[in-house]
């Protein structure tokens, strides 16, 4: 557990800092070009990102790069640079007005930078409470990722499989970043599905995983050969424990067709280890539930993503129809209520968990209002 937390606690996050540094390099070069040899007076940067100090941090980096070119206060030929920093999609954009000592416009300049899709920074967020029986040791989130994520699965402690509606990608945690190791397109023809679903089943011992989306005609078995994903086998349905005929998607939907004892299809979500399922109305059930305290008086509900954190503790997307935010529910087995929830900005579309003693690393695919997807990682520990 400590190792997992330590991965997220590395203080120096190279990737985001490098992004700002890249932007500062370009901005400084543009300023020097516009100044054309004149000393530069750098006015305070205006922050239009909606956050507090990105502009101030960028200003420090730009000022450092302009050392030797900055103007001392007072008269004399110089240019004044007024800057603002804004977020546009997944890009940080710096724009500036350069005026001379009389206030006449010299130039308008702009620079921007985007995240490297092959190295996604994991930006630490607040950890702390949010759950009665679970401690959130750390949490981190990537910037928006190109593509629509439909399923997630861990492949060992360090690797995360990300199933998009048209491809499978393998990322490795590299300090405070996810580094893309391999990406393979799913075999076509892919059919258009307005709200696609996906299912991933990783098998660590075999270093392989089955992948199926509602856009692809067949389930595909990928083997992980070193850092490469290699498609090795296809099947009409995705093999599933206790379901001899496997799992298929109902055509054109995100609903799963599967024959499981005591469960009526279609389903929104499935969990292979303890047999948890989510029905189309969000009701949680369990395949061949073992004897316990009996059925819940009030059926518990969840959204279209579940993952088993550790025996007896399920993580699930919140069931609420629309709201400003979604949440990840923590649902103990055999109890009616929840053990707490983890709020997230956006809707939870996929979950995966990696057990580790009495703790777990939880990965969540979160869709924002503009349709962008991010991956959030939560380091969780059972509270004793």
């Amino acid at each position, binding site marked *: 557990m400590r190792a997992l937390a330590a991965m997220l606690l590395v203080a120096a996050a190279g990737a985001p800092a490098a992004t700002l540094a890249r932007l500062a390099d370009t901005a400084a070069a543009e300023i020097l070009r516009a100044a054309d040899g004149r000393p530069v007076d750098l006015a305070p940067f205006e922050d239009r990102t909606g956050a507090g100090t990105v502009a101030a941090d960028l200003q420090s980096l730009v000022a450092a790069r302009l050392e030797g070119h900055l103007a001392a206060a007072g008269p004399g030929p110089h240019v004044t640079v007024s800057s603002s920093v804004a977020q546009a999609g997944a890009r940080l954009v710096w724009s500036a007005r350069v005026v001379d000592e009389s206030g006449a416009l010299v130039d308008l300049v702009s620079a921007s930078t985007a995240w490297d899709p092959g190295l996604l920074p994991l930006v630490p*967020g607040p950890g702390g409470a949010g759950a009665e029986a679970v401690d959130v040791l750390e949490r981190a989130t990537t910037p928006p990722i190109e593509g629509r994520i439909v399923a997630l699965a861990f492949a060992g402690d360090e690797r995360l499989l990300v199933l998009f509606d048209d491809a499978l990608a393998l990322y490795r945690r590299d300090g405070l970043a996810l580094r893309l190791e391999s990406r393979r397109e799913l075999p076509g023809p892919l059919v258009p599905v307005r709200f696609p679903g996906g299912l991933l089943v990783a098998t660590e011992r075999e270093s392989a995983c089955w992948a199926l989306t509602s856009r692809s005609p067949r389930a595909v078995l990928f083997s992980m050969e070193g850092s490469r994903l290699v498609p090795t086998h296809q099947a009409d349905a995705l093999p599933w424990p206790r379901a001899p005929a496997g799992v298929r998607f109902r055509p054109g*939907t995100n609903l799963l067709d599967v024959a499981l004892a005591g469960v009526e299809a279609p389903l929104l979500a499935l969990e292979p280890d303890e047999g948890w399922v989510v029905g189309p109305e969000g009701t949680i059930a369990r395949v061949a539930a073992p004897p316990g305290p009996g059925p819940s008086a009030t059926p518990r509900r969840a959204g279209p993503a579940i993952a088993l954190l550790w025996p007896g503790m399920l993580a699930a997307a919140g069931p609420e129809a629309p709201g400003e935010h*979604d949440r990840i529910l923590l649902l103990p087995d055999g109890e009616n209520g929840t053990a707490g929830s983890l709020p997230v900005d956006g*809707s939870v579309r996929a979950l995966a968990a990696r057990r580790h003693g009495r703790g777990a690393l939880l990965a969540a695919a979160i869709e924002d209002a503009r349709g962008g997807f991010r991956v959030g990682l939560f380091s969780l520990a059972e509270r004793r």
Partner: protein
Amino acid sequence: MRHEGRVLAVLGVVLCAASAARPALGPRYGGELRIAVAEMPATLDPAAPRGTAERLLAFLVHEPVLGVDDDGRPRPGLAQSWSSAADGREWTLRLGPATFHDGSPLDSADAARSLRRFLRTGSTAAAHLARTLEGGDEFRGGGTGALPGLATPDETRIVLRFRAPMALPLAALASPAAAVVSSRGAGAGPFAPTTPVSARGLSAVAFGRHVRGRPFVDVVRLVAPGPDRGPGDPGGADVSASSPPLPPAAGTLMLVLDPGVPAFADGRTRALVAASVDRAQLVRRFLPGGEPADVLVSSLLLPPWPAAASPAPAGPASLSGRITLRVGSDVPASASQRVVAHLAALGAEVQATAVPAAVAATESGQARLVLWYPEVPEPGLALEELAAIADSREAREALAAADLERNADRRRAGLLRAEEALRASDILVPLARLPLRLGPRPGVHGLRATAAGILVVEDAWIEP
């Protein structure tokens, strides 16, 4: 180290700042969505939209070859992929499998025919495309039927050849006027009309073979005001002006002053008018959900920059004579009354006349108060529209230079120069940014509005 930690923490806030979330449980199929609109367009034919209903219809029944994303880059429409050659002068678009509402297959000949029609429309995006495409201007002028810049080597490929490499040569194809229709007039959008458009409204059903999949709701009905329903009466509609407006605030409430009339011939007089409106108060008191606008183009298209402040007008301190102000029908009445009051306070005798939104947007007048949305949500094309309204040579030159700039950052800087050149003439006076004056009732989800003011219905769904 502490400094870097602060950078990361703030970046975290930035990255997590999603404005609103999509429904958690996911959409449901079925149901009927009734949308109350203030006025109906005359036709379903693809055209550059000039009013709310036209913008709504734009992508309800029609589909363009390509769309544009937040950065103005192409995103899939009927074409699922694209590639360039000849140093960016030649672009090949590949159509995905698609059919029209009448069941006939859609191929490159249909797309080419629709693009040729588009090039001869009054759309600003069409004029831009014609100017940049090989033989485009000659074809648009009607002097020839030949269009060497457009070819269809097979049923799925469309090849566009441009006069010069450009940063975003395909953005014009995202115009609603460029939508693809069959030779018999059928569209390929997410909903297929089942009734002709009329003053009473329009009905359309979900199109099961739409390129992005079947929409969630079964039926969409546009309901126009009638004897038993005024413009502000939702009349049982699921989407109407009586619900909270749908963000983002992307429409620009703008005063257009004609420098050809004596009252506004003097730039100092126009500057006086531009400086006279207290934008913050206008928004606070009369435009709920709006934002004061200091620049012409919304920050959804051009990220904010330290824009030039309007200089204090040095010249006449008052207006004189009689001014006719044409007010678009989609401009909130309270806002127009406030603007009239501002002009009257300067000494003018103002006669305000309500006109249809399309008339206010397209026909010149002494002064016009319009709610403007770009035809294509791409800043270069948006500024070109405004440059055409203001007839600004300086802005056109800045835009032409930006058009040829393939470095995105330098192009953006060029667009900022064009915006400032446009605004400096005080012919176009931005006042406020407004959200779409339509919103869903509780229980209706998935509706969204674009930066072009288009209500996107195809992802809407209704809670059972």
